[in-house]
C-alpha cells in the first residue's frame, strides 16, 4: 500500500498535489484497493466548477458505484481522458492515474498528511 509523501489527503480518500496555483487530484491507493477492480469512470468536463465536498466524478467497480469528492473549490483545467478508456490504470497506479487538474482555487478542504492518512486508514480497518 502506497502513501505518497508529496500528496495531501482527504478523509474521503482522495489525494491532492498542489503545484503553484494548480491542484492535481486522484484517489488513494487504499481507496482503489477497497473498491476492487474498476470498470468505469465518469469525469467532469474542462471548465466545469468543482466545490469542496461535492462529488465531481464517480467510479464503478463490479460491486458498486462510488462518488469521488472534490478536496478543493475551483475550475477544472484538465481531465485525464486516458482513464475513460482504461479505468484499470487506477488499480495499477493510483498516483499516476490522476483524475483532474483544478485551477482558480478559492477554497480547500481540511487535508491531512500521508502519515496522518495512513493512520486514518488503519483505524478504518
Amino acid at each position, binding site marked *: 500500500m502506497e502513501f505518497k509523501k508529496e500528496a495531501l489527503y482527504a478523509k474521503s480518500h482522495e489525494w491532492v498535489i498542489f503545484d503553484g496555483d494548480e491542484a492535481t487530484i486522484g484517489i488513494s491507493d487504499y481507496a482503489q484497493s*477497497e473498491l476492487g*477492480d474498476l*470498470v*468505469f469512470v465518469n469525469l467532469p468536463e474542462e471548465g466545469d466548477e468543482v466545490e469542496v465536498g461535492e462529488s465531481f466524478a464517480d467510479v*464503478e467497480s*463490479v*460491486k*458498486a458505484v462510488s462518488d469521488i469528492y472534490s478536496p478543493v473549490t475551483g475550475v477544472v483545467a484538465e481531465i485525464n481522458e486516458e482513464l475513460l478508456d482504461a*479505468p*484499470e490504470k487506477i488499480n495499477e497506479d493510483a498516483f499516476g492515474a490522476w483524475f483532474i487538474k483544478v485551477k482558480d482555487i478559492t477554497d480547500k478542504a481540511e487535508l491531512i498528511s500521508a502519515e496522518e492518512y495512513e493512520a486514518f486508514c488503519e483505524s478504518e*480497518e
Partner: protein
Amino acid sequence: MLVFEKSRPGRGVSALPECDVEILKPEEKDIRTSELHLPEMAEVDLSRHYTELAKKAHGVNDGFYPLGSCTMKYNPRVNEKIAALPGFTDVHPLQPVSTVQGCLRVIKETSEALCEITGMNQFTMQPAAGAHGEFTGLLLIKAYHLANGEPQRTKIIVPDSAHGTNPASAVMAGMEVINVDSTDKGLVDLDKLREVCEGNDQIAGLMLTNPNTAGLFDPNIKEITDIIHECGGQCYYDGANLNAVMGWARPGDMGFDCVHLNLHKTFSTPHGGGGPGSGPVGCKEHLAKFMPGVKVVDKDAHSGKDILSFAKAEESLGEMKSFYGNFLVVVKALTYIKMLGKEGIPEASKNAVLNANYMMQKLKGAYDMAFEPEVCMHEFVMDLSRQAKETGVTAMDIAKGLLDNNIHPPTMYFPLTVHEALMAEPCETESKETLDDAINVFLELNDLAYSDPEKLHQAPVKTPVTRLDEVGAARHPVLKYEFE
C-alpha cells in the same frame, strides 16, 4: 452453442397459412436492402435448444433461492391455472366493459385487498414492475407539489437503508437525491434527518422501506414520517420488504402517503427471467386525483347502468403503461390473496420472519451479522469482512461456492454500508429441512474458507460455466452476436 450457430440456410417451420388478402407491395424506399439475420431451424431443434438452456438455469423450482430483498417465494401452480382461464386470456382491452365484468372485478377486488393490506385508499395496476412503481409514486408526489404551487420541492431524501433502486428512480423523476446516513444500528439517524428537513421548503419527500434493506424494522418510523410531513414533504414506501409485515403493520399507519408493491415478490407471481412483473401503486385520498390510468367504478357513465366500469382521475398525471398494466399477473396475485385469505396472509409473513431468524441464529457463530440485531425481520445481512481479512475468501467466493451446492446465492455487496455483504431472504415457503440443508452448506463453506481457501477461489466447478471474468465482461462488454 448459440441459436445462430445452429442455424442452417433453408431450414424452418412452414406453419404459416397462405395469405388470403391482397399482398401490398411496399415502396422501394421502405424495402430493406441488407439481409435480416434470423436463425433458421427445424421446430424440434429449436425446442431442444430452449429446453437445454432452461436446464442450465436455476429457478425457484430447482432449489433454494434466498436472494435478499427479492422475495423469491414459491409460485403456486393454482395461480397459473386461474390466469389461463379463457375469460381472462381471450379478451381485448378495448371491448365493451359490459362483456368483461369479471376482469373488472379482478382489478377492483385486488385494489381493495391491497388497500386493506397497506392502509391506502386507492390503487393503480398500471406500473409494470418495482422501479416503474417507484417512478409512478414519485410522479404523484411531484404532481401534488405542483398543484399546491410548490414547484421548488425537488429534493428527495433517500436514506442508505432504503431499497437499492430508489436513487435511480428519483433521478428519473427529475429529483435531486439527498442521502441520510444510518446509525450504527442500521436505522435512519433521526438527528441527521431533522438537520436536513427543518424549515427546508425544497424537500419533496422521502423514500424508504420498512423493514429496511438490512432486514431491520425501524421502530422510529412514525417519527421519521412526521419529520418529513412537518417540513411539507410526502412519504413514499417501497414495497420491496412488505413480505415481512403483511397483515401485521401497514405503511399507511406508519405515515406513508403512497406505496408501490411488487406482486412478483410478495404476492407470489413469477419473477427473475422476465416475470413479467407488476408494481401496483397505492396512495391516500389526497393523492388520488393525480393517479395514472383508470380505476374501476360501480356505475357506467355512458349507459347509466349499475355495472363495473372505468373512470379517469380528475387531474390524472397520464398513462404509465397501456391500459391496465400486466393484467394476468394481477389475476395470479388475487388468486394468491384469496387462497391465503385474511388468516393466511399474516401467517405467511410470520413464517417468513421465523425462517429468517432460524437461519440467522444457526449461522451467527460462523458468520458475523451486520448491525448484530437480536432479531431480524424477513432477511438478514452477513458481513464477511472477517473471513476476507483472515482467509482471503470474500462474499463473492462464498456465493460461488453456494452455486456448486445447488443454492442460488444471496444478494451480494448490498447494502453498500456493509463491505462484504451477503443478504439472505429464505421466504416462508421453505421447509425446515431445506433451511437445515442450506445452513449446513453455509457452515461447510465457512470451514472450507479456513482450511482450503483456494478451493473457494476456484468455485464454481459443477455449473455449466465456471468462474466468469466479471471485470473483463464489464470493461469490454460484447453485447451482440457478430455475424461473419
